[in-house]
């Protein structure tokens, strides 16, 4: 049997349909208008340099059932509005619906004046001051923290250095073992001279990270994905959703040089968080993490493989450790319909049980 069953006239029809979709999609593109993101109302409660600390406004104040506020710590790469990208795809909103009082750290866009910001500045400086602000506002001594991706790694470090200020820790798609055999990013950077990168570029351009991430699956992410767009071009809402996601993917802040240097060398190249020897102002030991920990990871995560997160198990000082796996990818865990229905409610329930 031949591997093809394609009649020329059918192919012609397929191409004609393609052309029509393209033409009609162009009309929708002309009328698409502004692409909004970050949809839940929020107020600024603290600002410092490029950093902004937000508190999300729950329209129904009685809906906040948790006594302890929850601080979301996002990664330095990409922007935190992924957690609140649109009305029906908002981890923030789903957490609020689960009774949480939600705060969010937005690291902003570092410029060249921020080139000498270190991980110590970020974790023991900025993050610690945000925690202090929240503690003062609520007249409490400890808060709950939810760290996402690199922000999860920061949260682990922070919790190890300041266990007296963290009541419960939730990590989402957070790498702990940076050298699992399936970690493509880690494999690539092993022979990259991080000192040369930072000494030469100062801050590391966001575009450099963008293209690195796209190269993880170049044929899908730069080719097939756009062909798939064709199927939704005639739906203005679907087109807007696609463009919103595109905006987020390519909205990558530059990385402060010194923080980037230490992250690549200590975490990716030397795996010090897991193996020991990490210093962020002071030595960081996972054994110092004694508060309850919920570790949420995505089973099809191509950026942070599940094993990179699961490595946390047995390495922490806490006796209250829980894992929650989600059958999806690194982004789907925030934006998919299934994730909206399962992940934030599960986090809310876990926190309530320890409130």
């Amino acid at each position, binding site marked *: 049997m031949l591997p093809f069953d394609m009649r020329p006239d059918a192919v*012609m029809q397929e191409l004609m349909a393609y052309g029509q979709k393209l033409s009609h999609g162009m*009309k929708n593109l*002309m009328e698409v208008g502004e692409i909004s993101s970050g949809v839940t109302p929020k107020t600024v409660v603290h600002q410092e340099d490029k950093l902004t600390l937000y508190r999300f406004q729950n329209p129904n104040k009685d809906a906040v059932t948790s006594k302890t506020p929850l601080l979301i710590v996002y990664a330095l790469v990409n922007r935190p509005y992924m957690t609140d990208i649109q009305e029906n795809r908002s981890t923030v909103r789903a957490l609020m619906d689960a009774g949480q009082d939600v705060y969010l750290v937005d690291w902003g866009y570092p410029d060249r004046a921020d080139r000498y910001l*270190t991980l110590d500045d970020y974790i023991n400086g900025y993050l610690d001051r945000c925690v202090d602000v929240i503690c003062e506002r609520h007249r409490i001594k400890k808060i709950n923290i939810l760290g996402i991706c690199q922000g999860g790694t920061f949260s682990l470090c922070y919790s190890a250095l300041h266990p007296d200020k963290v009541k419960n820790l939730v990590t989402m798609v957070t790498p702990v073992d940076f050298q699992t055999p399936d970690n493509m990013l880690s494999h*690539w950077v092993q022979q990259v001279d991080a000192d*040369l*990168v930072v000494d030469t570029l100062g801050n590391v351009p966001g*575009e450099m990270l963008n293209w690195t991430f796209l190269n993880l699956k170049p044929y899908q992410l730069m080719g097939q994905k756009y062909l798939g767009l064709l199927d939704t071009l005639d739906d203005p809402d679907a087109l807007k959703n696609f463009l919103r996601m595109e905006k987020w993917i390519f909205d990558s802040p530059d990385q402060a040089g010194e923080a980037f240097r230490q992250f690549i060398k200590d975490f990716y190249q030397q795996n010090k968080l897991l193996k020991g020897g990490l210093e962020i102002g002071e030595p960081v030991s996972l054994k110092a993490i004694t508060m309850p920990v919920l570790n949420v990871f995505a089973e099809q995560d191509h950026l942070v493989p599940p094993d990179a997160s699961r490595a946390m198990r047995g390495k922490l000082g806490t006796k209250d450790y829980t894992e929650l796996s989600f059958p999806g990818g690194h982004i789907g865990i925030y934006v998919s319909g299934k994730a909206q229905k399962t992940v934030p409610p599960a986090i809310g329930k876990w926190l309530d049980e320890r409130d």
Partner: protein
Amino acid sequence: MGTTNNWMDGWLESQQKYWNAWADMAQRGMKAPEAPKNPLADGLNQWWQALSPMTPPVGREVFDRLMDVSKGYFSLAEQFMGGAKQGGGMDAVNGWLDGMQKMWSDWSQAGAAFRPDAFFPQNQFKGLTTFWDLPMDTWNRLAANVMPMPGDFTQAFHPEGAHAVKDQVNKFLSIPAVGYTREAQEQYQILAQRQMDYMGAMQAYQGAFAKLGIETTKQFQQSLQERAKEAKPISSLRELYDQWVEMSEAAYADFVMTEEYQTLYGRLVNTLLAVKQQMARMVDQTLEAMHMPTHAEISTLQCRQQELRRDNLKLHKEIKALQSQLEALRKTLLQGGTDEEAEEEPKPKRAAAAKPAATKRTPAAKSK
């Protein structure tokens, strides 16, 4: 908007005519006249060039990318249909894939830069390589981004040519600089040497991708044979494309997890940045000669400013803690309490970010 609709309708109409004529000839069993190699893709390109200035900034990049992908997709259709016109069947498909494989092989042996359309200006796969060179395309964008000149200027060089005279160039660049301009000569020699290193790294990287192209084509061919055996033929162009992407992604994923790729990638990044670093050094020397602030000097100031800021924040925190202690002490004294009670108030904690991280380097140290 009326103009836009006219363009769209015009393009659709031209596509309809083209395919109607083609179908008519096919039905009559006539031999189709010699046509342009990629009429659909070329038509699409012209249409987009005319229309793109009218598109709003929002989403333009997405549509640019969609058009690039579409051109490749149309080329795929044209190549495939070309095979079908010449008799169809597995022979035509194999001929098409063999041609593709030959292209990669020639490429790999020639050691040419990864520019299929430039290397084979008349080749039948023009446009189709959009599918293959995505990883290289991203690299070129990245290189352009970190260089002071627009675009990846190294694309203008021909590493295959440089390779032939590499030894002579290296000998020439090793000649000790002498005379009044000795230092400047040395800097240019270092720059030229680093450019040679980068071109060598780029050539090795591109060569590896050409081999990957051969491997992917083989795997694609095998996957088609397996589908034939399993009686699961490909029934649409989109299915063909998806199968191709799946095979390309799988072969790519295997390759980039090898030690070979890790070395190639590390070398490529490091040599590119070494060029950039030397350029920056030479620019600094020029600025210094003109009594203007250099990058290294500004970097030093930024470093010192950050250290001052850390000290400042540390002092703020300590003052706040002391004030708190003082207030507690005052209250205790007023209430006639004990020193121990006052001691219960928090003491100044470790100063946040009080010292630079262990890996931090001073700009002065690295600029020399």
